[in-house]
Each structure stands twice: as structure tokens, then as C-alpha cells.
């Protein structure tokens, strides 16, 4: 719920919030003591491995597992026959975990074995005989939309188009967001730019592969240890897929080595449970990097057309987008979010964004920070940059003239409350990097970006120990330093030291349901629940002090970590500290604890503006990022170092997405670069020092003003870098990644054009 009752008790001055203490999980992580997904083991544990399709599209006529099952050391083999088919929203999830009638992409799971050693499991996989009928395939979004394209699902007819199609299609659905009169808007424009863009699929690139240890007994009671962004999601989904009672499955989230949205669904977990159930032994599964690339979610690849018109004095009159996103072999690409966010940075009277959700023979896409928004922002911000150049207007001023602000009707419908886009633009304009001199082959670009931020179901418990320390249990896996932020918020409320609070991520049987850590929600939602749980503890502590003093609880107030008589009429008593009340708790009523459950909303939308300088080597096409500056609205930065880290992480991932990262498919439909040697994510030497400016426009829906910060930072980088590269080489770059071969090709084309 939004702010109600005590939540409305706003704080604007802080003692702990805004400081930068050392993260509580830091020592464990740098000494190797932290336990990640693959660090779990159990007595009698088996090793699980998956057989994956080598074909992009093939009918599975028969699977013969007899020889594998007969191999010494093999304890279980599972195939589609071990998972009950279904006809509901979870069917695609099930089919993605284990193929049924068809293998739909290179890497699709077809069978799995559990054996006493990894070597035996590998040998067993080779003994499984799969009879495939290879079918024509398609991996490119534009090709998949053409008449005559190989059809993945003959029961799929495009939704939301008139007249209703009579033939099946790879286009799952169409969506549209529109305001005003687009035709009239373009008629008012003095200058119109229309461009087509393409972006390749990129992987979230988390360093830790998917891993789990599952143990499911014959009584239907089970446990999983797993690296995930949402262990309650793992529990509920696995219980549903395997026909278990939710209460009988206990899931513990390990430390996580990166997720970025990619660990918000199940892949190997239901398979590990099925193998455990069949073998009667614990089963551990750890994906190889090859499997991570081939079978877990990258983001969508896209094809887009953007058209924007402006008056000569810089007022945008109309904006239009056609977005085509392929989401792999199943419907559900984030094209609708792309259509909603494409023009969200601008105050527009006439706007239209149309999206097409397309399926292809690729792995099912998974969320990747601000899913759907970065690709659309790349295309839109490229056109905005070109328009600013055409009307000879400073690109910041052009954006400022059209920027969304409080009261703007957003391009996706609702009216914005207090937002900070203008502040991010002004901060970038005022930064010295905006005026730094540029040399030969160097270019400067900037772009803005938007993300919604979400909150959701959250449950938190705060236990006070006898020595005055606090154990805080949250149910949201910490993927970005959130335990430090929770400690700070609890300490701020209680008036105790940061070091006195220890935050853990509780297992699913110890705390009520929590939504997945996604949508930039944790510092907002778990933070809100933590604040409320702390306020409950304060209320109880005041009551204990009142009883001790023999006065009414209403006559006690809480200040600076102490219970005090509210005034002279309440009596003259020495204040009782948090530690003193905790120490006496066994005699004043027993354990002291606070708890709060909430379905939070109001995480507060956020905006960012990124500025980038690059130098391009015209001989090789290599791009070096010289300077990078970020201004983003955080509402209120709880732990500024982690807010800056989120900003910088988004920029680093954006540098990879913009310059090098791409899924490369061969003509046979197989992924050609399923490893970090051939799929090049940025390393430290690819990144400059990234300057950050934290803008703080308070979110009125949080007691401290917090907004989500984890996703917005991935939205502007591709546009900013593309604008910088285009400026450096004098050619508008329309495809991502802008890898050296593409840049050399663009330069050669320019020379050829000049020669003609």
C-alpha cells in the first residue's frame, strides 16, 4: 500500500543515512568465505547434467535412455515424460526447462541425468539417443516476421490485430500506446528525422553460472540451495511444476554472483528436484558457461523504426516508433515495456509507439535491467541527437526544452508526479566533462533514459538481542549491497550503530512471502518494511520503559536511541537506552521483535542522463571510452557508494552492449560464441573512471524519499555511446553493437559514397 499511518512519518534529517560504511558481506566475499550457488554439498550427493539440443528447431520423435540408465553410477535419468504437461501460464516455463514435442533452440534441454560423478554423468549423456526430425529455423526478428518464415508454433495467431489472422505467425501480439494526433503533429514539424535501427541480443553476463543443490525425499519434503534473485519464486514455481505442497519445499538463497534480471526465473531447479525425487539422493547442478549462454535468458534482439519531428526552435511536435522485439522461442519479449518507455523522457502532445512480440529459434529471453527500455532508448536518443544537430541546438538544451516534468502526461498514459529528469540534464550541462576539449577522432554524446521501478510483496522481521544488537531478516536476495542499506535504515530508526545491526536473507520457511529482487525494488520495499518493523520495536520499547517507570506508554517518547519521558508532567526518569531496554527484556515481557509485511507500491519512477566521450581508431574501428559521466535521480541515496555502484555498473554493462556484446548465430542456427572468449564483455581496461552525480528529488511515497536505482542506469548508455561514436566518425551508427568491423564498414561506406 502507499504511505499510510506511521509510514507517512517523513524524515528529512539523518544521522546514518547517506554515510558510507563498509558492507557487511565484504570480508566474506574478499576472503572466499562467502558461499555461492556452487558451494553447497550434501552427503550422498549426485551430480546432475543436461543433454541439450544441437539443433535450432527439431521435432523430437523419440528419446531412448536405456543405455544411459544401465551405466554404472547413473542413478536417475529424466526427460519430458517425468514432467506432467499442463495448459496454463507456467507451460512455457516448463517447456523451456525440458523440451516436449520439439527442441526450439540450440541448447534446449532434452534430457538430464544424475550420477555419482561428473564424468559418469557426462558419459551417460552421450549414451542417450534422441531421434530428431530437423526442421527449418529462424533466428532473426525481421526474417521471423516475413510471410513464408518457418513457423515455430502452428497454433499461434497474432493477437490484437484486425482482422483476426487466419494463418499462424511468429508474431505473438501487437501493442500500441498513443496520445494526440500523430499525423497533425508531423505536419507542424519543420524538421523530421526517420531512421531504422537494429540491436543484437546481449546476455546479462553474470559471472556466477546458475547452480543449485536439490534434495527431495519420498515423503514429498524437499530443500533447494540456489543462487537466485527470488527464492520464494523458485519455491512456488518448482512446487507447482512438480506437484508439491509449497510448505514442503524450503529454499535457501545463496550469495549471488550477479543476476541483473537473469535469475528471476527457473532453469535447472525443477530438473534437479525431479532427478532427486527419482534417485532418492541430493542432486547438485551447475551450468557451464556454454550452457548459460545457450540456454538462459539473454535480452531480446530488436529491429526498430523511429520518426521524430521538431520545429526549428526546438519543440518536438510528434514522435513515432515501431518496435519489433524477438523474445526467443516463447512469447513474452519486453516490447510492451519498450513501447511504454521509448518516449517517456519527453513531454509530447502527439506520440505513438507500436510493438510486436516475435518468437524465433533462440533461448527464451529473460529480464535484463529495465527490460525492453535500453534498446528503444538507443534508437530514440539517436534520433533526438540527430534532430538537435539539424536545428543546430545544444543537445542538452533540446532535451530540456522537451523534458518531462511534474504534471507531464507521460507517453504511456499516466501523469508524472515529482521527477528529476530536468535536474539530471542540468547537472550534466554544469559538469566540467561537458566542456572538456575533444581531439581528432573523438566524439561526444549524451542520452537520457527512464525506468518505472517497482516494489511489491515484502516481509521483514527485526529481532532485538539481549546485548542490544539487532538481527534483521529480509526475504529479498542481496544483489547490489542491499544488506548494508537495510542495516543503515534500521540503525537510523532505532538510533543505534550500523555495526549493531546484522541483516540476513532468510529462507522461505522462516519468513513470509517476498517477491523476487527485481524492478529496482529492494531498497525501497524491504527498506520500507524494515523502517516499519523498527518503528514497531520502538513502540514496544517505549511501552517497556513506561511499565518500568510506572507511567502511561503515551507519556514516553523515543529520541536518539533512548526512551524518555515525554515531558515534565510524565515524571523525572533517567532515559533508558536501546541497549538497557534490550538487556532487561527477559523481565519486562520477553523477546522484543518487530515485523512488517506489505504489498508496497510507489517505488518512484526515475530518470538518468549519461554523457560519454570516445575516441575511434579509424584504421581498426576500435573505440576507447575516454570519459563517462552519469547523473541520475535516486530520490534519497541510503548508501551513496552503492548508488554510485549501480550507476557505474549500468554504464559498464552499457559499454559492453554498445561496443562488443552480441549473440552470433551461424546459418545452422547454432550459437557461435557461447563463451567469454568470443562474447566480449567489458573488462576494467575498457572502462574509464566513471563520474557520478546523485540527484535527489525525494519520492513522496517513501519516508526517506528513496527511489529505485538499479535499472535506470542501463537505459541511456547505448544511446550516449552511439551518439559519441557517430560524432567521432561522422557516420550515424544504426546497429548495436558498434564493434570494430561495423565501424570500419561504416567508414568504408562513407569513403565509397564520397568517391561516388
Amino acid at each position, binding site marked *: 500500500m*502507499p504511505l499510510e499511518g506511521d509510514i507517512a512519518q517523513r524524515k528529512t534529517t539523518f544521522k546514518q543515512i547517506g554515510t558510507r560504511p563498509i558492507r557487511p558481506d565484504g570480508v566474506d566475499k574478499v576472503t572466499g568465505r562467502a558461499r555461492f550457488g556452487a558451494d553447497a554439498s550434501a552427503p550422498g550427493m549426485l551430480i546432475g547434467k543436461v543433454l541439450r539440443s544441437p539443433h535450432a528447431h527439431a521435432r523430437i520423435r523419440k528419446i531412448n535412455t536405456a543405455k544411459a540408465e544401465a551405466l554404472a553410477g547413473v542413478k536417475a535419468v529424466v526427460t519430458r515424460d517425468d514432467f506432467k504437461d499442463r495448459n496454463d501460464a507456467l507451460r512455457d516455463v516448463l517447456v523451456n526447462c525440458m523440451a516436449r514435442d520439439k527442441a526450439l533452440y540450440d541448447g534446449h534441454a532434452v534430457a538430464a541425468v544424475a550420477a555419482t560423478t561428473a564424468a559418469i554423468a557426462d558419459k551417460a549423456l552421450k549414451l542417450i539417443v534422441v531421434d530428431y526430425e530437423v526442421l527449418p529455423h529462424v533466428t532473426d526478428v525481421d526474417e521471423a516476421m516475413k510471410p513464408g518464415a518457418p513457423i515455430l508454433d502452428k497454433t499461434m495467431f497474432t493477437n490484437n490485430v484486425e482482422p483476426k489472422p487466419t494463418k499462424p505467425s511468429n508474431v505473438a501480439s501487437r501493442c500500441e500506446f498513443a496520445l494526440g494526433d500523430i499525423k497533425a503533429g508531423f505536419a507542424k514539424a519543420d524538421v523530421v528525422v526517420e531512421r531504422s535501427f537494429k540491436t543484437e541480443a546481449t546476455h546479462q553476463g553474470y559471472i556466477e553460472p546458475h547452480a543449485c543443490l536439490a534434495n527431495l525425499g519420498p515423503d514429498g519434503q524437499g530443500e533447494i540451495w540456489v543462487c537466485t534473485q527470488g527464492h520464494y519464486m523458485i519455491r512456488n514455481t518448482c512446487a507447482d511444476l512438480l506437484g508439491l505442497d509449497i510448505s514442503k519445499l524450503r529454499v535457501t538463497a545463496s550469495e549471488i554472483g550477479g543476476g541483473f534480471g537473469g535469475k528471476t526465473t527457473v532453469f535447472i531447479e525443477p530438473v534437479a528436484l525431479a532427478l532427486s525425487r527419482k534417485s532418492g539422493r541430493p542432486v547438485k547442478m551447475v551450468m557451464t558457461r556454454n550452457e548459460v549462454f545457450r540456454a538462459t535468458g539473454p535480452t531480446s534482439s530488436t529491429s526498430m523504426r523511429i520518426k521524430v519531428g521538431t520545429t526549428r526552435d526546438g519543440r518536438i511536435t510528434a514522435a513515432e516508433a515501431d518496435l519489433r522485439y524477438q523474445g526467443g522461442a516463447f512469447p513474452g519479449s519486453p516490447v510492451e515495456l519498450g513501447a511504454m518507455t521509448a518516449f517517456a523522457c519527453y513531454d509530447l502532445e502527439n506520440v505513438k509507439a507500436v510493438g510486436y512480440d516475435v518468437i524465433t529459434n533462440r533461448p527464451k529471453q529473460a529480464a535484463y535491467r529495465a527490460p525492453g527500455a535500453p534498446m528503444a532508448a538507443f534508437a530514440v536518443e539517436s534520433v533526438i541527437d540527430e534532430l538537435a544537430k539539424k536545428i543546430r541546438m545544444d543537445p542538452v538544451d533540446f532535451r530540456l526544452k522537451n523534458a518531462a516534468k511534474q504534471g507531464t502526461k507521460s507517453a504511456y498514459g499516466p501523469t508524472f508526479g515529482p521527477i528529476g529528469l530536468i535536474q539530471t540534464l542540468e547537472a550534466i550541462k554544469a559538469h566540467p566533462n561537458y566542456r572538456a576539449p575533444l581531439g581528432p577522432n573523438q566524439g561526444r554524446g549524451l542520452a537520457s533514459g527512464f525506468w518505472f521501478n517497482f516494489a511489491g510483496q515484502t516481509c521483514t522481521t527485526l529481532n532485538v538481542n539481549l546485548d542490544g544488537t539487532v538481527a534483521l531478516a529480509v526475504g529479498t536476495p542481496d544483489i547490489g549491497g542491499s544488506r548494508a542499506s537495510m542495516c543503515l535504515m534500521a540503525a537510523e530508526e532505532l538510533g543505534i550503530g550500523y555495526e549493531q545491526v546484522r541483516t540476513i536473507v532468510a529462507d522461505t520457511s522462516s519468513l513470509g512471502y517476498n517477491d523476487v529482487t527485481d524492478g529496482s525494488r529492494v531498497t525501497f520495499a524491504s527498506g520500507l518494511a524494515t523502517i516499519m518493523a523498527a518503528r514497531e520495536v520502538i513502540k514496544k520499547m517505549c511501552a517497556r520503559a513506561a511499565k518500568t517507570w510506572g507511567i502511561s506508554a503515551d507519556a514516553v517518547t523515543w529520541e536518539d536511541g533512548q526512551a524518555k519521558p515525554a515531558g515534565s508532567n510524565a515524571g523525572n526518569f533517567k532515559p533508558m537506552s536501546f541497549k538497557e531496554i534490550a538487556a532487561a527484556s527477559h523481565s519486562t515481557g520477553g523477546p522484543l521483535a518487530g515485523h512488517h509485511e506489505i504489498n508496497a507500491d510507489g517505488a518512484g519512477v526515475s530518470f538518468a542522463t549519461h554523457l560519454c566521450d570516445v575516441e575511434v581508431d579509424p584504421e581498426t574501428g576500435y573505440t576507447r571510452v575516454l570519459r563517462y559521466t552519469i547523473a541520475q535521480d535516486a530520490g534519497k541515496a541510503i548508501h551513496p557508494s552503492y548508488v554510485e555502484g549501480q550507476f557505474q555498473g549500468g554504464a559498464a554493462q552499457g559499454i559492453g552492449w554498445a561496443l562488443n556484446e552480441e549473440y552470433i548465430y551461424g546459418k545452422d542456427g547454432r550459437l557461435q560464441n557461447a563463451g567469454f572468449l568470443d562474447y566480449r564483455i567489458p573488462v576494467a581496461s575498457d572502462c574509464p573512471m566513471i563520474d557520478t552525480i546523485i540527484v535527489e528529488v525525494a519520492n513522496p511515497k517513501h519516508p526517506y524519499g528513496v527511489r529505485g536505482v538499479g535499472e535506470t542506469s542501463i537505459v541511456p548508455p547505448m544511446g550516449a555511446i552511439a551518439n559519441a561514436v557517430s560524432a567521432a566518425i561522422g557516420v550515424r551508427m544504426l546497429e548495436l553493437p558498434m564493434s570494430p568491423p561495423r565501424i570500419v564498414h561504416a567508414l568504408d561506406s562513407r569513403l565509397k559514397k564520397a568517391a561516388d
Partner: protein
Amino acid sequence: MARVMLGGTLKSLAGNTPVLEVDAKTIREVLDRVGEVYPSLLPILDRVAVAVDGQIYRNQWFAAVKPDSEVFILPPMAGG
């Protein structure tokens, strides 16, 4: 009467309807009224996001809707 607008695929599913005016005090009541008028939306209405006066809610039946509220029913939304 709150003004209710449909966004994206929802608008198409409802036959590209313009603004709908409903008498409702909560999001749950808004969704009930919309479901009565557009049965084609029923399969999806329990998963939609609803923006009331600019504030986006997900799965929040009891959030208040005022007579002059601007309500947008938006497709299911999730982050990463």
C-alpha cells in the same frame, strides 16, 4: 465518476475503446466494472498494473480511487 483508460494490448483487447467512466472507490471495484463491460479482458485483469493519479500499483485491490481520479489500466509489468 473516475476516468479509466486502457493502455497497450488491453486497449486492443477491448476493441480500442476510448475513455470509460466508472463509479468505483477502489482499484478492485474499477477492475470489476471494467471486466463487466469488457469480458474479453477478464483473463488478464488479475495481472494488470493500475495507475491511479500517476501512481502505479500492481496487485493492489484496495488502493483508493477518487471520483475525479485518472486511472490507467496497464499491461502486466516487471523489472529485472
